[in-house]
């Protein structure tokens, strides 16, 4: 009885996804001159003379100035041609008065005023998943070495936020009472760093897992993964073609399937490298074919490089977040805290540069 009910829920979710996908398909046709008014939900990709973003399922290239950021409301005009908006003109850009977006932008500026590149970009990427803050050159290096997942918004960010908050709240609350605050914290983090597919995925999964703990119900990670995928596609059907969305689910799936088995085989690897190596090897199994097909890129040394840099990530994220938030109030102390992250970001970028031959 219970089982058949579960299946019913699953099938109806799939139906809703399909209906949503077809009903939300845009109504323009090839050659139409259109005007799009939209909020920007992820940072545009910055090139030397232009910036790129996706709006209403179209590729849009705009001149470099005025610069657009996550959270801005923009009006763009152009002609639909083969999936891109030809001759795109930025008619209007309104800065968001949203408090969280302000915080995000000020954090990134603070990193950039405190440390030079590529370190400031690396901290922005690791802490906030702000890929747009990385220089083109360094971005290319992290892609070549297969560690790009660290500097884009990924489930790892949410995992760190969650475990950090649990650690903090556990000091003066029982675990059960702490859970609502942790979930709230994760949602706040999402508002500050942007609604990139991998973050939303991890946030939904974490919420499912934590609420299950609270209600005492048993939910397998695999089921949480499938449910969050379906819920996300109902919210935003465009995600179905989002590479970050696909990679996030495939990577998480591979982790669930293979990570434990691989870790058992790595007895001789030193403890601080072990987790980095086992998780990246496990994720690679699923992710590599997708990366190879979409980017034509594959680095055989990637698991080694990952193992060498991943241990620095919790330190960078912790010092970046604390240093940034403190820095918004007392810049001098914030700077000192960020300086403490310098050896870690230096190590990270040196490894990436060294292996980028």
């Amino acid at each position: 009885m219970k089982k058949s009910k579960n299946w019913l829920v699953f099938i109806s979710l799939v139906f809703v996804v399909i209906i949503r996908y077809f009903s939300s398909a845009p109504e323009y046709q090839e050659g139409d001159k259109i005007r799009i008014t939209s909020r920007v939900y992820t940072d545009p990709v910055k090139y030397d003379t232009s910036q790129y973003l996706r709006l209403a399922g179209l590729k849009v290239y705009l001149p470099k100035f005025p610069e657009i950021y996550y959270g801005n409301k923009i009006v763009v005009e152009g002609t639909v041609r083969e999936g891109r908006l030809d001759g795109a003109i930025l008619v209007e850009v309104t800065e968001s008065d949203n408090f969280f977006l302000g915080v995000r932008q000020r954090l990134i500026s603070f990193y950039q005023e405190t440390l030079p590149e590529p370190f400031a970009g690396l901290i922005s990427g690791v802490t906030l998943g702000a890929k747009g803050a990385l220089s083109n050159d360094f971005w290319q290096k992290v892609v070549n070495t297969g560690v790009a997942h660290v500097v884009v918004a990924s489930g790892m960010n949410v995992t760190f936020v969650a475990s950090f908050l649990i650690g903090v709240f556990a000091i003066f609350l029982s675990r059960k009472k702490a859970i609502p605050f942790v979930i709230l914290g994760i949602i706040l983090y999402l508002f500050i760093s942007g609604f990139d597919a991998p973050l939303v995925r991890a946030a939904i999964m974490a919420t499912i897992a934590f609420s299950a703990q609270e209600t005492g119900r048993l939910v397998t990670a695999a089921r949480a993964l499938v449910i969050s995928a379906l819920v996300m596609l109902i919210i935003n059907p465009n995600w179905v073609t989002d590479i970050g969305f696909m990679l996030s689910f495939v990577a998480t799936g591979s982790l669930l399937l293979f990570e434990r088995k691989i870790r058992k085989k790595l007895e001789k690897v030193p403890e601080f490298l072990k987790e980095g190596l086992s998780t990246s090897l496990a994720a690679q199994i699923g992710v590599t074919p997708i990366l190879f097909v979409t980017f034509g890129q594959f680095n055989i040394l990637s698991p080694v490089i990952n193992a060498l840099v991943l241990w620095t990530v919790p330190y960078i994220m912790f010092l970046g977040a604390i240093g940034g938030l403190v820095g918004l109030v007392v810049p001098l102390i914030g700077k000192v805290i960020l300086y403490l992250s310098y050896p870690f970001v230096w190590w990270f970028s040196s490894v990436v540069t060294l292996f980028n031959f």
Partner: protein
Amino acid sequence: MVVFIRRYIIQFLVLLVSIIWLSVFQISDANLHIIACDVGQGDAILVIKGSTQILTDGGPSSKVLECLSSYLPFWDRKIELIVSTHPDADHSTGLVEVLKRYDVDTVLINKLDVGTQVAKALENEVGSSGARVVYPKRGMGIRLGLIYLDILHPPEGFESTKTNDYSIVYILKYGDFEAIMTGDIDQDVSEQLAVNNQIQGVEYIKVPHHGSRNGLTENLLKALEPKIAVISLGKNSYGHPHKEILDMLTNQRIKLLRTDLEGDIEVVTDGDKFWAVD
């Protein structure tokens, strides 16, 4: 508990020691360094003496930030002087990002209204940075520690239809060493400079206009007699550097260094001798 705390203290000390060691290797020496940053087709020239920096133009992209990162210690976030020779995108785009991130004391820039998006972005950024703005005119002198800048161009009340002609030209003096920065001046301005000023005997010239034939002239080169010529350029569709200019330099036996062939070009001087770093 005690063991725990002791472990944290040891980790923290290791961290501090590594910061100190990483810092020690970034402290600059007592010499003056001129670095023509490899920013592609454009100009960005960085001068460093101790903790004083002068950045002349910022290139066509934010690539200039990498150059600043590799030659400045990580804690030095102050640039004493920015010279924006003229508003063309291949010289001023990178300055927008530099002004956002660095604490800039003074900006030397022409008062021009060209109306391009880049020029507007730069103007906004200069305005909000709180930097002191200085408008150049011939005869003006600027001193920064032991470094002297003599401004040769443009003269007061200068008028032209071309933005390149407004390029700020200056001679940098450090001890007996002299270097001339020429922006994108064309032949007319080069000829005027050759006759109008009593300049003679510089060691270093930043060849005007990325080695275009519409830039350096024989007369200016004869007046200056440089030993080292640097051309800042990248892949381009203009045919830079033009053969006429390369021949001119070869004929006068001037050592030529190009950013498109060698990347960043660093020339060092102690105020007496000077040498290029490989």
